[in-house]
């Protein structure tokens, strides 16, 4: 491929590369989050920081993925096209799914910094929806992504996504022991003095 062709499609290639990076980074972030959140790995407090760094990198990649499309001369979308679902007519459903997933990832990811205001327990419940946004992102990439049919993309996605999916399944289906047991005494209100 010549330099001229790359220059011509620069923003489009950039958007696709950033989307791929966002998918892989988010998958690893979900993996790490499930590992330390589900108490599958103990004694590694640094994993939380790794999860945070990966999540921030994912958000940056998502922003690059969307914003670089603004420079694409083929689609030439407006800001509304890439930020508001169902505005763009191009691959409307897949695009809208990606936009919703992207906003959800950004909002749920950044809500970490407002968790004191939200409340720890409420934030933890809220944070579980990140997995849904991540899955929606996968569906978006496989449904609309130009590279979804290529071997390299499928292999890379499988390597990153399948372990995270397995951990997600273990977390939600297989480990009742992971939750702390609740005794009736713990639920009972404390007696007043």
């Amino acid at each position, binding site marked *: 491929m010549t330099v001229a062709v790359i220059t011509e499609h620069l923003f489009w290639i950039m958007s696709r590369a950033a989307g791929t990076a966002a998918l892989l*980074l988010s998958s690893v972030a979900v993996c790490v989050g499930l590992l330390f959140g589900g108490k599958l790995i103990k004694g590694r407090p640094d994993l939380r920081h790794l999860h945070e760094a990966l999540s921030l990198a994912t958000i940056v990649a998502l922003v690059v993925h969307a914003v670089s499309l603004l420079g694409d001369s083929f689609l030439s979308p407006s800001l509304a096209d890439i930020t508001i679902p169902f505005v763009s007519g191009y691959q409307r459903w897949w695009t809208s799914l990606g936009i919703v997933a992207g906003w959800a990832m950004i909002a749920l990811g950044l809500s970490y910094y407002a968790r004191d205001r939200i409340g720890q327990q409420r934030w933890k419940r809220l944070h579980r929806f990140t997995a849904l946004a991540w899955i929606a992102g996968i569906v978006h990439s496989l449904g609309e992504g130009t*590279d979804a049919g290529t071997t390299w993309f499928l292999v890379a996605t499988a390597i990153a996504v399948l372990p995270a999916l397995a951990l997600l399944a273990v977390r939600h289906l297989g480990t009742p022991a992971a939750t702390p047991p609740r005794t009736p005494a713990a639920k009972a209100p404390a007696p007043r003095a």
Partner: protein
Amino acid sequence: MSDRTVTPPAPQPPRRPSPEPGRSPKEFARDKLRARAKRISRMRKRVVAASLAIFALAFGVIAFDGSMGTTTSTQTTASAATAAASDDSTSSSDSSTISSDDQTDSLGNRTNSSENPTTPDDSGDDSSSSDHSGDDSSSSSSSSDDSSSSAVITRQS
């Protein structure tokens, strides 16, 4: 001297390194915090480096191996078949330029399997899609007249 030999060492919690004799616990804790901050900083740098590497790798693979859309020359002849095809294309403005099988054999281009990117639901997208292929589609739309060649680029984002 004898006191030192008799007095047993203070019990330490397991797996905790005892502070060095010359340093106070505060200094020891500060050093531990500093080491932890350094470790976290190093980890963040690695994540940034890995992210950039993934982006660069993906960019390289897409740029040199990925699909940039299809640019093909198609020879169409004025016949009943093309007339029928152009009749079909009246239902969807640009779809006739894409749905023909002879031009969408590019790698990675999945315009046949999914909904047509250049068949928008609203008329506003007609203008957006014709931004790129306006000159091309005009030539392809004129292909129903007589034999002519047209270059059509189709792609998905």
